[in-house]
């Protein structure tokens, strides 16, 4: 599509131009959220950079470099290699199934020698890339054709099934919801969602019976009634609510959270880090973090709306949606609105792969911004 190239003055940007065009305000917002995370990890370490805060800072630094690297790579490169990346992520997921490292009762990691990788995290971004590319190639009217939807449905369901088997219900849920969001944004008809919803509702009893592990069923039951088992499985939910509620409006003060520092709060450096923030900084602290998140989401959405190709739009909106799902599920979980599922608080919880995945994701979002005026044809060969 030579025509597209003519209309695109930014097709060959220098690195300097691209860096100048990076949405630095978004990067700053990401840094601020990560900064909140560092402070909370410092507190979780009982006022010490080790063992969590320092390592998290290192990872964030690395992730930031990665983010910029991803951002300056031409959006068309990501378009071309979307399926390849998806295939790699899928292979890694299968590798987990075959030769994964068992940790905390689940098989989620592959050992790459240098570090342990959680392929289900990578799959989140890879799937968004693949779906964005697929829907990019589909004309608006083609969206209505059911057979054409079978391919993206399979692209979603295969990794989801693999992740459920690990078992990692939280991530599986997250991946399928992001995918669902993309289907929606791509223009799949309303009635198909209604049908899908009906199907899901119908499948719940079956899934309960055959798909869910005993501990997963337990978690749902405990969510429905945590006080039944206050010292056993309901302990997390109750202690989290106590910590949150006792924080009050202004909190107990930095490093002063009794629930967190006296170990009543489990997993305070990972899934329950928001509870710790709530305990030490109260409602005000929570609102500040939510405000930062909201700003990031708004930026992401604005970039999606501004993009000139469906691929970039779907990519930016998809990453933003995943980000939202992360934070919503995590916060809803620690406040007792959702059952306890292992979903970290994005950019704040301690954890390497999740943070890198998100930063790569935002790298792609920024790449969409930097290359916002790049027009792409419907077929993959637009750039020769």
């Amino acid at each position: 599509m030579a025509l597209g190239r003519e209309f695109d003055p930014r097709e060959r940007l220098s690195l300097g131009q691209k860096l100048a065009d990076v949405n630095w305000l978004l990067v700053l917002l990401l840094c601020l959220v990560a900064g909140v995370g560092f402070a909370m990890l410092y507190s979780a370490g009982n006022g010490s950079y080790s063992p969590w805060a320092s390592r998290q800072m290192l990872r964030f630094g690395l992730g930031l470099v990665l983010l910029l690297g991803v951002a300056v790579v031409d959006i068309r490169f990501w378009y071309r290699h979307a399926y390849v990346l998806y295939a790699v992520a899928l292979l890694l997921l299968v590798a987990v199934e075959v030769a994964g490292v068992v940790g905390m009762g689940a098989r989620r990691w592959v050992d790459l020698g240098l570090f342990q990788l959680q392929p289900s995290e990578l799959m989140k971004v890879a799937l968004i890339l693949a779906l964005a590319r697929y829907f990019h190639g589909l004309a608006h009217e083609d969206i209505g054709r059911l057979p054409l939807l079978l391919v993206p449905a399979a692209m979603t369901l295969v990794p989801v099934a693999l992740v459920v088997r690990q078992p990692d219900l939280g991530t599986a849920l997250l991946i399928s919801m992001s995918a669902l969001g993309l289907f929606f944004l791509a223009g799949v008809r309303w009635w198909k969602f209604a049908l899908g919803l009906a199907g899901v509702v119908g499948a719940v009893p079956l899934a309960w019976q055959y798909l869910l592990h005993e501990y997963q069923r337990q978690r749902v039951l405990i969510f429905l009634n945590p006080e039944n088992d206050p010292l056993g499985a309901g302990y997390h939910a109750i202690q989290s609510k106590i910590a949150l509620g006792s924080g009050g409006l202004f909190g107990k003060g930095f490093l002063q959270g009794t629930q967190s520092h006296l170990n009543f709060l489990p997993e305070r450096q990972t899934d329950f880090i928001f509870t710790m923030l709530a305990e030490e900084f109260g409602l005000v602290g929570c609102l500040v973090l939510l405000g930062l998140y909201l700003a990031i989401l708004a930026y992401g959405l604005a970039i999606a709306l501004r993009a000139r190709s469906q691929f970039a739009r779907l990519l930016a909106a998809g990453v933003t949606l995943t980000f939202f799902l992360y934070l919503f599920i995590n916060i809803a979980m620690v406040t007792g609105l959702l059952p306890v599922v292992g979903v970290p608080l994005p950019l704040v919880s301690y954890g390497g792969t999740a943070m890198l995945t998100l930063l790569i994701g935002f790298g792609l979002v920024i790449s969409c911004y930097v290359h916002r005026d790049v027009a792409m044809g419907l077929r993959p060969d637009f750039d020769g």
Partner: protein
Amino acid sequence: MDRDADRRRSFTRRAALLGAGQLSLFGALIGRMYYLQVEEADQYQILAEENRINLRLLAPPRGRILDRFGAEVAHNRRNFRVLLTPEQTDDPNQTMARLAAIVNLPDEEIVRVLREMRRQRPFISVTVAENLTWEEFAGVNVRLPELAGVHTDVGQVRHYPFGDRLSHIVGYVAAVSEQELTGEPLLELPNFRIGKVGVEKVLETKLRGRAGSSRVEVNAYGRIIRELRRQEGEPGHDAVLTVDSELQGWLMGRLGEESAAAVVLDVHTGEVLAMTSTPSYDPGAFNRGLSAKAWRALTEHPRKPLVNKATAGQYPPGSVFKMLVALAAMDAGIAGPGHRVFCNGKMRLGNHTFHCWRDKYGGHGWLEMQDAIEQSCDVYFYDLAKRVGVDRISDMAQRFGLGQVPPVELTGARAGLVPTRAWKLAITGKPWQQGETLITGIGQGYILTTPLQLAVMTARLANGGFAVEPRIVRSVLGEAAAPVASPPSLGLSAAALKLVRDGMDGVVNGKRGTARKAALDGEIRMAGKTGTAQVRRITKAERAKGGKLAEDTPWEERDHALFVAYAPADAPRYAAALVIEHGGSGASAALVSKEIMTEVLRRDPQRRAALGRLAGRLGPGQAG
């Protein structure tokens, strides 16, 4: 590009919708947080505090028990301990090896400590050694810097300096049993000890004191982070006994391995100066924890060391009871001092013959009441009992404290038994037989008494007929002492009491007294009465052979030897009762009683001089 415009419009619409959805979910989150952190904040703050704060009880030091002169008979000794906290040592084996060089640690103890360390949570200390000597304790403290994870502390452990000599009075403390839990939190402390027997049990609430408390901040694993507030408890009150621990110790030594019980009372106050039961046991063993083997040895011992025979041993009083029969007769106006009976050695009732102990010598001949007591004539008292009837005798016995649990501050005291017609009918369904009245007249048959009751009886005879009650706790320090009411009179005529006392004087000091050999040396006279309680009926064949010889009879079948005494005879101050199980005759108990009373008087500074030679011979070195 038109196609893309369609897609773009659709995307924009749907993205806006999705954004709005996200915004409303944000609203839900904020609403939820407002609810938890503002509306319900108070409730969760309370819950968080409850999580965080633990109330720890501080055990108060237990009150001491002192004898009448202030000597400690039960106190708390410092217990030097060495503890090891697993998480503070990298190499427990090496630490233990270093400790073993300072403190005596058998290999099996080291194995036990290492096993316990693996089982416990790493921050909970394991006790390595207890009851160290001061030298060992100081040695460990000096080398603490090179002993990682080791720390020392000083606990308290109950100690009984007199060992088995006062155990039947003081009792002992031991770990709280399931049944003893009352809901008082102090009792649930590990290592808490409460009184199980004796004064330790009776005065438990006063000795225990009040628990202090310490509010501590704990983490989810129960580890103490810091102390927030501390409230000291109140130590237990000290208790003072009426007992003279040195006299007690002397008495225990004198009775030795006999299965015997002796009680010494002040006749005016009822204060127990000494009360022994032999053999005894070591009260500290119960505190430390007794092995099953040691427990069996104590419970299966034929001479029953765990039983306080002075309060729980029930014996027929034998002839010691005759004073009360005489008093019952005089009090009822049935027979006066001049009542005469001829003793030919036996008395027939129906077709049964009742013998006098002097039967083989042909009886006592004519006797008046005082002679009958002095010579302990059985026939005289058969006759008297028959005239008076068992119910009047029993009434008199009750007035002297028999047949009821004495109100002494001890556990396990028994009531004995004073039979009446109604009692026999109720228990056996058979009417009372006159022959049973006869043998009750000489203190045999159904009647049972404890040595303490006999001492109280003797005190009431000696003090002019006043109903003193025995006391073993003089006071509880820090408490207002209850005013001691002067004991009520038993309402007996002075003449009758004088006759009985003269009779008892004669038993020891008269020409024909049954305990002539027990007369004290020196100016002070002791009065008393012998008693011999049959364990088994004497058979006709034995009587035909002229009585049985002690040497021929197995120990368990020999008679119990009893003696009650008071001194000085003319101005009584001390009463004593002695029972030697299977000890032969009352005369042999009288000889031991002589030594007891001599020692009691020797310890009374006002009377030491009057004791003469014997007191001089027994130096203070033998006192205790």
